């Protein structure tokens, strides 16, 4: 039995609806009788149609101005909840999603469930599954307090599919006041250059770890291979912490969750915190010189060998095929 009204705290990404928002809306269609979105963005009309197609009958839109999106999100949600009484609100475990969730929970004194990977609804009983210990164990928790229930999910927990809904009617929300919290002002945006597809959206992800041996090997081995496969390049935390590549490339518990068609791990041992971010990939290829490396326990094709020997040959072969 579905629950009454489900909201999704939707976010934008480079002027479009974020993939995670569309994933949550798709799931919300299964869970509730009514599905609506709350969006904090200065150009909601560009984003609402996609949210509508994925299930949002209405899109409540607030303009953050130069305040932080998540902070304004918390304030906007608090205001809207009073009027519209949703039963369940879904958030993405993103920077702004977490800020909005945290602000809202403290404002309304509501508990939260975070890092969710699945959700079950049976009428007013809502259970969220969370993977712990690097994904080895699944804990299921049911809300027992007042509504609305606030739940936050790791990206890629659900598949995004358009449901043929309408364009999503935009309802402007005015007069949102975040108080002193709203005094945190965004004064400038810095966008880092990226080539090829985004890590979260790529069909192929090639990631490198400490086994690359040096920072200088990342470009000719990992990036080159990713480029040839029209994929994105990722990394383990070890080489992010070592300063070889920027944090944006990190895959794992404290980085991105990816579910590409193929994930290629080069010189990565397979720590649980890394695997939790990539073990949902359709196919996994691992290259590691240690036959006992944990990564082999989840690899569909495991190559025991020296990455600095195997990968250049692989790149040669792909180039020879004109790929």
């Amino acid at each position, binding site marked *: 039995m579905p629950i009454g009204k489900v909201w999704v705290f939707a976010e934008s990404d480079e002027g479009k609806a974020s993939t995670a928002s569309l994933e949550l809306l798709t799931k919300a269609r299964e869970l509730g009788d009514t599905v609506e979105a709350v969006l904090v963005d200065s150009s909601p009309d560009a984003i609402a149609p996609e949210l509508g197609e994925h299930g949002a009958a209405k899109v409540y839109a607030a303009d953050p101005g130069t305040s932080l999106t998540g902070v304004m999100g918390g304030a906007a949600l608090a205001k809207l909840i009073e009027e519209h009484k949703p039963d369940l609100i879904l958030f993405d475990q993103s920077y702004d999603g977490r800020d909005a969730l945290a602000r809202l929970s403290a404002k309304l004194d509501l508990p939260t469930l975070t890092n969710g990977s699945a959700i079950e609804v049976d009428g007013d009983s809502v259970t969220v599954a969370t993977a712990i210990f690097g994904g080895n164990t699944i804990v299921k928790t049911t809300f027992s307090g007042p509504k609305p229930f606030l739940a936050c999910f790791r990206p890629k927990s659900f598949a995004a599919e358009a449901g043929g809904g309408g364009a999503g009617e935009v309802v402007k929300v005015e007069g949102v006041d975040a108080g002193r919290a709203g005094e945190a002002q965004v004064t400038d945006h810095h966008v880092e250059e990226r080539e090829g597809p985004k890590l979260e959206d790529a069909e192929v992800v090639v990631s490198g770890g400490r086994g690359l041996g040096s920072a200088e090997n990342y470009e000719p081995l990992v990036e080159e291979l990713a480029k040839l496969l029209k994929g994105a390049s990722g990394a383990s935390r070890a080489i992010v912490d070592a300063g070889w590549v920027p944090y944006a490339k990190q895959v794992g518990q404290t980085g991105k969750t990816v579910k590409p068609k193929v994930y290629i791990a080069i010189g990565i041992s397979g720590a649980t915190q890394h695997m939790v971010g990539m073990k949902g990939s359709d196919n996994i290829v691992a290259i590691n010189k240690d036959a006992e490396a944990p990564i082999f326990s989840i690899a569909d*094709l495991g190559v025991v060998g020296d990455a600095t020997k195997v990968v250049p040959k692989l790149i040669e072969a792909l180039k020879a095929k004109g790929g």
Partner: protein
Amino acid sequence: MNVLVCVKQIPDPAVPGELDPETKTLKREGKLILDDSDAYGVEMSLQLAEKAGGGEVTLVSMAPNDEVSGLRTALAMGAAKAILVSDPELQGSDSLATAKVIAKAVERAGDVDLVVTATESTDGYTGTIPAQVAELLGWPSLTFAKHVEIGDGKVTIQRQTEAGYDMVEAPLPAVVSVTAGVVEPRYPSFKGIMAAKNKPVDNAKVADLGLSGDQVGWAGARQEIVSIEAAPERQAGEKIEDEGDAHERIVAFLEQLKVI
């Protein structure tokens, strides 16, 4: 400038975690250590106070069994004193209850210009506590900072975003959460370790903070763990030894999947 920095004391992450089948919480037996994530917050706070030319760094930790070993590490790094909240009533506390405790501890410390936390703890990683604390205090929160500066009564950070970073500023007092790797945490010196033994730790109970038992612990969490299961395991496929031709196998595998 007075900085209050949140430090979580956690079981050694190198030891595989375990759930207590009775209470369904993480087992927190034995010695706890300073969460690595918070070592960055401590270092950042020390640097900010030094740059501001005065003021103190105070630690706040909520931990079971009056645990202080992690606090001593942070005191040895240079923090002046600590508030430790330890109370059997806190068992089962969720992030909001933890945030309530920390916010009350900030008020207890008094005269705080800046609260520093990590973005997420190593063992809990909800990442919600910083903004919850800020909301409870009615302060701005500047989360996911990879660079922090203080001046003219305001704090300015580089906030990590999906695309790069944003410059964000707010008047003090405020809460800042810092990402791992923002600074290089110092190693405590021998002198620091010795001095830490005599630095004051203010022990507070839930009631001392003006909170009631139903706001924290199991009662405050208002959620129930209904099951704990092993996740379905992914099966290993084929494993081959490279004899100079492994790349051909990879090419064949990729062809079969039609990615090339």
